[in-house]
């Protein structure tokens, strides 16, 4: 395959020789170009975000307006609207389940990490493409297949999986327990299997690419923080997704082959099942061994994107570059040893609860360091509020708000009351959902010019940001009150209990805010698709940024740089360097060319740099004369 082999070619060749003429299929569908694959992930992610968001509007209607006649939804939902015009309680659970699954995996894992790891890794490290373009293509198409299966499951007569996005057995294992655990759950498991395969194919590629294909001079200590984040995310995914696969596989066995990994002592539907000796808690351990790292799989790329955008638009180096890397490393490692804080009251040994409480609150420290570093980066900056910058600042706000409530939930004594209440819902929607979503949005606004060669409209971006930022707080902040009051999650209605038979006004407010926030996303959709074709032509480096992707042509071809891949001579955060004429110095500018702005230790490096450049010239010249 000609397209896949280009990364292996000698970089000193003139790439015009290799310009190949893609047909529609190889360019837009079965593409091995990392940029196209990134865009494929993005568009699929956006599609899922609309579906996932729409599902949440459906169940918010039920929660905010329990008396509402939903007859008008019958054309869409059919039998899931009962004779009295109410949403079916089983389908309500299916909605909640699919909203969670779609948002966590399809939007914030594939849509975020898939898009930006693919798009940015080769561009920012100076590579022609991913280590394996073919595997990269497979990664997308496994994801696509997974998407198709999950999408079909929404429309089957018994409904999609309905056991919550965590699909705890026995509920998810027994068709008698809930109709969604029949075919819907089978499709869920198949879809997730393909999804895991897709994640692993992608992750291996990201890791090998970052390790092996960095351009000359791009040492790990000169990598943009985005790349560090994508790299560590891929490592987390590679280590944790197989465990989810194991959990799912055992669940398949329990469901279809009569094993008892998770099932024991069950009497259901008027009969006692033969299974004994299994443990539902085993599933929870396996699930959360992925489930918790998954939070960071979702969050780290967003934090990486934010680091890059905040530095660029503050016209200031990111504060504490090394501290940022160390805290991301810390989060990566700790993310694997905190999983059981989801299970304080699951019946597991309370001693384990104590251990996991200690470990969990340790992970708050690197997170706090990151926040303080962001704040210091803004301090005495020269801030340009591009839409990307606004979304990044919004992300930091959500990260603080949601992160702090994590300190309550990580404390097992306090968690007794708060576990599985709306306090948890508020917590993770802010810190994981909204923060990562804002990272995704920031990334799209910031790298849109590189993706499509055109600018998105900034003003529409501002409106989109403010509507969404205010909207997200209006949706999730009130949930803290509801949660402290003890309202349980995944409840179709709260009026059965005296303690929760209140706050109908607050729930109505939340639902209205959710609808408005969802509506505001259409501003983005319009801006995105319209600008793709009709947006203002972008300049080569619209944000006056330092990183390598802005040294490519406006529409980089397959191979990214028409000539040689540029070499890198400095870290990516030389913004507003004292003495420099401009307020940014791209990574490709040698230190020897900027004596006026070099710091003392950099001045010492100039000599080494010149020697290396001289040596390389000697090697390169004969090479070039050959070709």
């Amino acid at each position, binding site marked *: 395959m000609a397209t896949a082999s280009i990364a292996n070619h000698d970089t000193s060749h003139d790439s015009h020789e290799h310009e190949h003429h893609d047909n529609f299929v190889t360019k837009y569908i079965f593409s091995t170009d990392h940029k196209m694959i990134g865009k494929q992930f993005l568009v699929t992610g956006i599609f899922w975000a609309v579906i996932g968001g729409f599902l949440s509007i459906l169940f918010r209607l039920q929660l905010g307006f329990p008396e509402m006649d939903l007859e*008008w939804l019958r054309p869409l939902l059919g039998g899931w609207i009962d004779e009295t015009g109410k949403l079916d*309680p*089983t389908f309500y659970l299916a909605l909640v389940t699919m909203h969670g699954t779609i948002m966590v995996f399809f939007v914030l894992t594939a849509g975020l990490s898939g898009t930006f790891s693919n798009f940015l890794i080769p561009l920012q490290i100076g590579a022609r493409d991913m280590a394996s373009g073919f595997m990269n293509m497979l990664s997308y198409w496994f994801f696509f297949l997974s998407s198709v299966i999950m999408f079909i499951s929404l429309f089957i007569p018994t409904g999609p999986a309905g*056991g919550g996005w965590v699909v705890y057995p*026995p*509920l998810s294992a027994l068709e008698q*327990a809930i109709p969604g655990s029949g075919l819907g759950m089978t499709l869920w498991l198949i879809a997730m299997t393909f999804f895991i395969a897709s994640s692993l194919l992608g992750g291996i590629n990201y890791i090998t690419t970052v390790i092996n294909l960095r351009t000359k001079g791009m040492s790990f200590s000169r990598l943009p923080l985005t790349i560090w984040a994508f790299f560590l995310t891929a490592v987390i995914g590679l280590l944790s997704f197989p465990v989810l696969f194991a959990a799912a596989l055992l669940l398949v066995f329990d469901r279809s082959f009569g094993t008892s990994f998770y099932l*024991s002592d*069950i*009497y*259901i539907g008027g009969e*006692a099942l033969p299974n004994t000796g299994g*443990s*539902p808690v085993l599933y929870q351990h396996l699930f959360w061994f992925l489930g918790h790292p998954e939070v960071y799989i979702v969050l780290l790329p967003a934090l990486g994107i934010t680091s890059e955008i905040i530095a660029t638009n*503050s*016209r200031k180096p990111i*504060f*504490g*570059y090394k*501290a940022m890397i160390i805290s991301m490393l810390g989060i990566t490692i700790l993310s694997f040893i905190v999983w059981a804080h989801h299970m304080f009251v699951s*019946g597991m040994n*309370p001693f384990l609860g*104590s251990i996991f409480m*200690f470990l969990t*609150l340790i992970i*708050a*420290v690197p997170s*706090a*360091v990151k926040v303080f570093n962001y704040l*210091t980066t*803004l301090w*005495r900056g*020269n*801030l*340009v*509020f591009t839409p990307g910058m606004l979304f990044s600042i919004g992300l*930091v706000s959500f990260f603080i708000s949601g992160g*702090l409530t994590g*300190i*309550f939930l990580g*404390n097992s*004594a*306090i968690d*007794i*009351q708060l576990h*599985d209440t709306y306090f948890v819902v508020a917590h993770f929607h802010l810190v994981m959902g909204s923060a990562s979503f804002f990272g995704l949005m920031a990334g799209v606004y910031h790298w849109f010019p590189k993706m499509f060669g055109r600018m998105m*409209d900034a*003003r*529409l971006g501002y409106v989109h940001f403010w509507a969404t930022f205010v909207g997200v707080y209006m949706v999730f902040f009130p949930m803290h*009150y*509801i949660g402290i*009051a003890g309202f*349980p999650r995944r409840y179709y209605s709260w009026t059965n*209990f005296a*303690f929760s038979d209140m706050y109908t006004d607050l729930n109505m407010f939340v639902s209205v805010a959710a609808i408005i926030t969802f509506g505001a996303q259409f501003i983005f959709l*319009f801006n995105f698709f319209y600008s793709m074709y009709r947006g203002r032509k972008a300049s080569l480096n619209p944000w006056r940024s330092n990183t390598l992707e802005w040294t490519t042509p406006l529409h980089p071809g397959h191979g990214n740089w028409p000539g040689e891949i540029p070499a890198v001579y400095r870290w990516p*955060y030389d913004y*507003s*360097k*004292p003495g420099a004429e401009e307020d940014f110095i791209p990574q490709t500018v040698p230190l020897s060319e900027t004596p006026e702005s070099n710091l003392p230790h950099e001045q010492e490096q100039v000599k080494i740099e010149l020697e290396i450049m001289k040596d390389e010239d000697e090697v390169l010249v004969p090479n070039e004369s050959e070709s």
Partner: protein
Amino acid sequence: MYGFLIGVGILLLLSIIWMVYRIQTLVSVVKGSDKKIASSSNKVNALLFVLFMIGAGVLMFWYSIKEFDNYQLPIASEHGAVTDNLFWVTMAVTGVIFLITHVLLFWFPYKYQYSEKRKASFYPDNNKLEIIWTTVPGVVLAILVFTGWMAWSDITAPAPENAHVVEIMGYQFAWEVRYPGADNVLGDYDYRLTSAINSHGVDFTDLNSIDDFPSPVVVIPKGEPVLFKIRARDVLHSVFAPHMRLKMDAVPGMPTRFWFVPTKTTAEMRAELGDPEFEFEIACTEICGRGHFSMKKVIEVVEPAEYQAWLAEQKSFIQQNPALAENLPAELKEVAEIQLSEQ
């Protein structure tokens, strides 16, 4: 008709948005502001951050204070006072951090908004600062964790010997309650014995189960330790008694437990809240299927003397349904018959 009107409305809205969009694009081209690094919108956005901070801050304080009695559920257990105290201490600590960080986060954009005359400070790192804001949160968190751990250890410690045992079994979609009777020991059970007349699956060949009795409500004495033995018959459930600050999953195949000391009787709570209808409730907090939202059980907390009187009145499973004793071995049948004759 309705749908048609909505359609027209949406169309109208879209076309208005479209016009506004085109006009502002043209205006910005005419003004040449799209060439500038930071247009006048920069100032607006900077200002909006400050306005958002003030607006949202006022709203938050106003609502938090106004609604305090609504969202703060009264506490009715000993450990509940401890965990609530921890909750509010954590709230104070995190609240301060929340306010400080957000004031900085929203004020910096205003203060340091772009100006062509200024250059940002080149300030890449400061190890002293990094160390400070690594250790300070570390120490604060350590204190919070330590107090939490002490409370957690006390709460999850083995129940006192004299605790009143109550078994709560979850199934789709209700709870069933079993008391151990005079011996304060619950009899064995086996899920395979579950039937229409024996919904608990109690094994009556175990002597301890002869005096076990069911109850439609959970009755417990005030001021004395109570041990909930929790199990599930079909899928996961979770016992949640919000006023008791109690929550524990019910797991099929793995019995769990939670002990506590209730501090207020139902009557006292009714007087305190001025609500004659008030009842302590148990809800389910682990998704369990269609009726997840309706698994309610009432807890009635009474004075110890009342509790003893209530216990004496209760009829065992066998007394309520002598058929259960039919297939028992001879010596157990004798015990059962004595019990029946005492009625």
